[in-house]
């Protein structure tokens, strides 16, 4: 039900092209007759931009690691970091804000106008919800993720394997988006063919994660958040100042240049109809609450009041960031489509350019923000924004690969398949192999999803989280009738339903597999799959007559008392965060 073709008008099936693309990547440069390659030759390669980019990326990584190393000696002393809401707020925001949102939302607005705002608004909505309904009670329970909460009262084995598969599916869609974003960046910055760029990015990231990049430290997140806020602010203000000489406002100028005309400011360019809009809204708002490890930082702050204030600051930062993405999207139209700045399009608009399409932008619509930086701020801002985007993608990828590999290594292998009998070394070995496999898969999928908007791909990750994890979490926390059977049936139904509807929907069935029509009509199945999850939990729980089910229902009271008042220690979780935690003893027998 997408009004315009997200493949940018080319509409070619990606799988056959994928094989060719891999071949192209290996023999890069030799096939210059191909239009894809000749197109790429026009990417604005520039020494200064690359230098700025390289210096900034290196700087962020070194500073992050140096600070982490320096802080390690101070941690035991009960550092000031713990009690500082501002720094923690930045760290929490840093963990959530990603360059994929910046590139994706700006790209959506650049192509379709108004509808990008729905993503900006929706991604912020999850925050207050997660704070009020999830974070506070979870803190009182001393649990961090829904798998850990579930393990309090329910049979942990089946819940854990469901949680692991759910995390993996979420992580994959998230990773694809990051790969597409990073691949496009490297393509535009260095003038490489896209598939080569994605492979380079993938190899770099696997190396980084495997050799020492494991700690996505607080300081790294703070640096990332600062960078992202500063970079996007600089770009947004440059865009606003650039247009301040004109009599028309930002939105009017954008609408005048864009092929969609005044329709650019009207809804409906990308999201087709109310069902699609509500479905997407469910995914964006409720998916945040179901994301694995999203609020880790909230739980590691000792003082609840400080933790809440930190979240408040994070929400403000994230809201500001999403507002900027919106300004940048419209600003990008105003400068990239400006006939006086022709470097950013393959075929600039003007006389003789009949049927001009915004898809002519070098590197695809995902690069709209990057081109906007180049257009208003020259090579310096171009290098700066690219570096910000790349480092933030890198830190997100580190976290995602780690989460994905842990889901395979610990939850699926060590705790489920080996039933807790695997040694630590086995688990580590499987986790490392999983890391490489996850990385390789995301490279292949990143190439396949070349022309898709990254915000759209991320929204699918949120759909999965909203359909599987979110209903389970809500049922565990707020419904006394929940039983293990309900969780397992409803969780798998929601998760499987979301995956099946995405696979048969327009994004994969039509665009990726090249079928004429999608079997499932909506791009985002969130509304349907989330409902499926809730109904599944309810139905399988009320029909559960087992003694175990009765025990589980009876234990709700104790859990709810604990969720309300916390434990004697003031509701502070005494355990280390789950990522570093040993498998719970006594659970997996």
């Amino acid at each position, binding site marked *: 039900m997408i009004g315009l073709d997200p493949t940018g008008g080319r509409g070619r099936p990606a799988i056959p092209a994928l094989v060719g693309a891999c071949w192209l990547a290996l023999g890069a440069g030799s096939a210059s007759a191909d239009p894809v390659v000749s197109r790429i030759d026009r990417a604005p390669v520039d020494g200064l931009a690359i230098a700025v980019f390289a210096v900034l990326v290196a700087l962020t990584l070194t500073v992050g690691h140096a600070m982490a190393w320096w802080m390690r000696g101070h941690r035991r002393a009960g550092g000031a970091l713990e009690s500082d809401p501002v720094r923690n707020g930045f760290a929490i925001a840093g963990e959530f804000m990603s360059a994929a949102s910046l590139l994706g939302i700006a790209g959506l607005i650049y192509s379709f106008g*108004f509808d990008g*705002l*729905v993503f*900006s*608004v*929706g991604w*912020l*909505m999850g925050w*207050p*919800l997660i*704070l*009020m*309904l999830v974070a*506070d009670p979870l803190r009182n*329970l001393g649990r961090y993720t829904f798998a850990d909460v579930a393990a309090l*009262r*329910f049979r942990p084995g089946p819940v854990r394997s469901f949680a692991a598969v759910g995390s993996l599916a979420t992580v994959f869609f998230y990773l694809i988006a990051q790969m597409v974003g990073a691949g496009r960046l490297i393509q535009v910055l260095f003038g490489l063919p896209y598939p080569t760029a994605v492979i380079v990015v993938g190899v770099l990231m696997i190396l980084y994660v495997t050799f020492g990049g494991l700690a996505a430290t607080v300081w790294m997140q703070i640096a990332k958040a600062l960078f992202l806020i500063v970079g996007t602010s600089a770009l947004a203000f440059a865009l606003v100042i650039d247009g301040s000489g004109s009599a*028309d*406002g930002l*939105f*009017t100028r954008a609408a005048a240049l864009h092929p969609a005309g005044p329709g650019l*400011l*009207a*809804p409906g360019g990308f*999201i087709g109809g*109310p069902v699609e*809009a*509500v479905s*997407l*809204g469910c995914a964006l708002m409720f998916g945040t609450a179901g994301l694995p490890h999203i609020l880790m930082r909230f739980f590691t702050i000792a003082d*609840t*009041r400080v933790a*809440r*204030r930190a979240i*408040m600051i994070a*929400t403000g930062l994230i*809201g500001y960031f*999403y507002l900027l993405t919106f300004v940048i999207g419209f600003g990008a139209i105003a400068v990239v489509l400006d006939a006086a700045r022709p470097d950013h399009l393959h075929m600039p608009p003007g006389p003789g350019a009949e049927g001009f399409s915004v898809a002519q932008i070098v590197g695809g619509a995902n690069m709209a923000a990057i081109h906007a930086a180049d257009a208003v701020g020259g090579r310096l801002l171009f290098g700066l924004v690219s570096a910000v985007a790349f480092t933030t993608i890198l830190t997100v990828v580190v976290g995602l690969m780690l989460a994905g590999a842990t889901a395979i290594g610990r939850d699926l292998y060590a705790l489920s398949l080996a039933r807790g009998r695997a040694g630590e070394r086995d688990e580590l070995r499987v986790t490392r192999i999983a890391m490489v496999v996850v990385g390789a898969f995301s490279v292949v999928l990143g190439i396949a999803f070349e022309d898709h908007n990254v915000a759209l791909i991320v929204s699918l990750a949120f759909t999965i989280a909203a359909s599987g994890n979110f209903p389970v979490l809500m049922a565990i926390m707020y419904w006394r009738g929940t039983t293990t059977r309900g969780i397992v049936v409803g969780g798998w139904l929601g998760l499987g339903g979301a995956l099946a509807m995405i696979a048969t929907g327009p994004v994969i069935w039509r665009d990726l597999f090249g079928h004429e029509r999608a079997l499932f009509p909506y791009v985002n199945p969130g509304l349907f799959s989330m409902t499926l999850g809730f109904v599944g939990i309810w139905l399988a729980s009320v029909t559960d007559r087992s*003694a175990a089910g*009765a*025990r*589980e229902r*009876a*234990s709700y*009271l*104790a*859990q709810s*008392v*604990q969720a*309300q*008042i*916390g*434990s*004697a*220690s003031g509701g502070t979780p005494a*355990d280390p965060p789950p990522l570093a935690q040993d498998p*719970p*003893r*006594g*659970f997996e027998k």
Partner: protein
Amino acid sequence: MASVGQEVDPVTRPPGPSAPRAWPEAERLSRLPSFRVLVRRRGRLAWGLCGLLVAAFFGFLLFVSLAPAAAALPLGATGLTLGIAAGIGVIALAIAVTGLYVRRANRSIDPLRRRVREAGQWSGLARPGAGE
């Protein structure tokens, strides 16, 4: 504290084979008037604000998807439209709601919570292996 420290089983695995485990202290606490006040206040605050946000956000979605022409109405000369203003308004509302919740939770819910905790012997659910 001591009674919980001996527990090595998860909550749902009572020493006995299949009888539901009793939680006398949880039951006693849950009948306390102060506990009821806490549950009511916290519930009203959290669910009320969530309901407000859900209504605002889905109202916004339905507005722009059902009445795109109205959402495209310009406000002033900058090209700002009703729909864009509404979206920015929802973002502002979300930030305001978060602020309100943090304030209320820190100032009035937490003291209530402390009072209930002091009224009982509650020391938390059994945590396997943890000796608290």
